[in-house]
């Protein structure tokens, strides 16, 4: 019954939560950036002159998808501070 004292429990739960946070967060951005990149490459293959203008908006879409995973990474860091 020594394992259930509050400090250990909070440490264990924080470590588990940090792992889950970044792991599940990475799924979403993987799918989102993959979709955006595939459309971008398709549009370049179709019309190579549009590369300069489309590239800016592709990078905007990349950063907006990545933001959600970065929020999850921030939560993981906040939880890791409570471990140990």
């Amino acid at each position, binding site marked *: 019954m020594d394992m259930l004292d509050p400090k250990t429990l909070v440490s264990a739960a924080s470590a588990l939560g940090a792992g889950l946070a970044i792991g599940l967060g990475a799924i979403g951005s993987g799918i989102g950036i993959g979709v955006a990149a595939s459309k971008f490459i398709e549009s370049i293959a179709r019309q190579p002159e549009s590369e300069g203008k489309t590239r800016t908006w592709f*990078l905007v879409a*990349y*950063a907006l998808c990545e933001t959600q995973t*970065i929020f999850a990474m*921030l939560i993981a*860091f*906040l939880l890791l501070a409570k471990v140990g």
Partner: protein
Amino acid sequence: MEQPEFYILDKLHLPPLPGLSAHNSLIVEYTWIVMAIIAITIIIVIKNWKTVPGGLQNVIESVTLFIENYLIDMIGPKGLTYFPLVVTVMLFVLLGSYLGLIPGMMSPTGFIGTTAAMAIVVFLYYQYLGISKRGLKYFKHFLGPIPAMAPFMLPMELISEFARPISLSVRLFANIFGGEMIIKVLFGMSAIGLPVVWLFWDSVITIPIQGLIFSLLTMVYLAGALASDEGH
């Protein structure tokens, strides 16, 4: 009270990560260093102005021409009025984040206070622009296209409006601070070789994209507040 400037941040009881508390850290001094670097760079470029630009002038011109083209595209010929704000934001994000990659220094943008300050300035400024252009009718766009849908649209619109400064500041802070944390972990694992991978990724991909995003979103929000035709 001691250190009254941290009163609000202390009340929030945030975890003791270095990016969330400015006690015993030199954020303000690093911000002065970034300000000095920006000012000296621009003065050098202007003093040695060439018609066929060389190295440093080329770099600064790539930033300023990019911002000018987008301002004129999105806002029209009067867009250049807002050029100082956008170029300051972009240069501060870029140079402030690159400073952290130099050993022994930390980025001012890796602290939630700096990025929140920039996001709040942009937020208040474009609200002010919308109100000064259209009066209090500027807030009618929260009510949605049909007056009958107003009770449903208003909470959603308010939340997404306030999500703008929050996401703007947390996006930049988490990218830069998370990058510094990962560099710290990689240096702990192996002193030579491995951290170069993350330093490369950060400096070539993350920081330019974050600078682009912050300034592009600033321009989009400014253009949205200044839109004179009722399209919503």
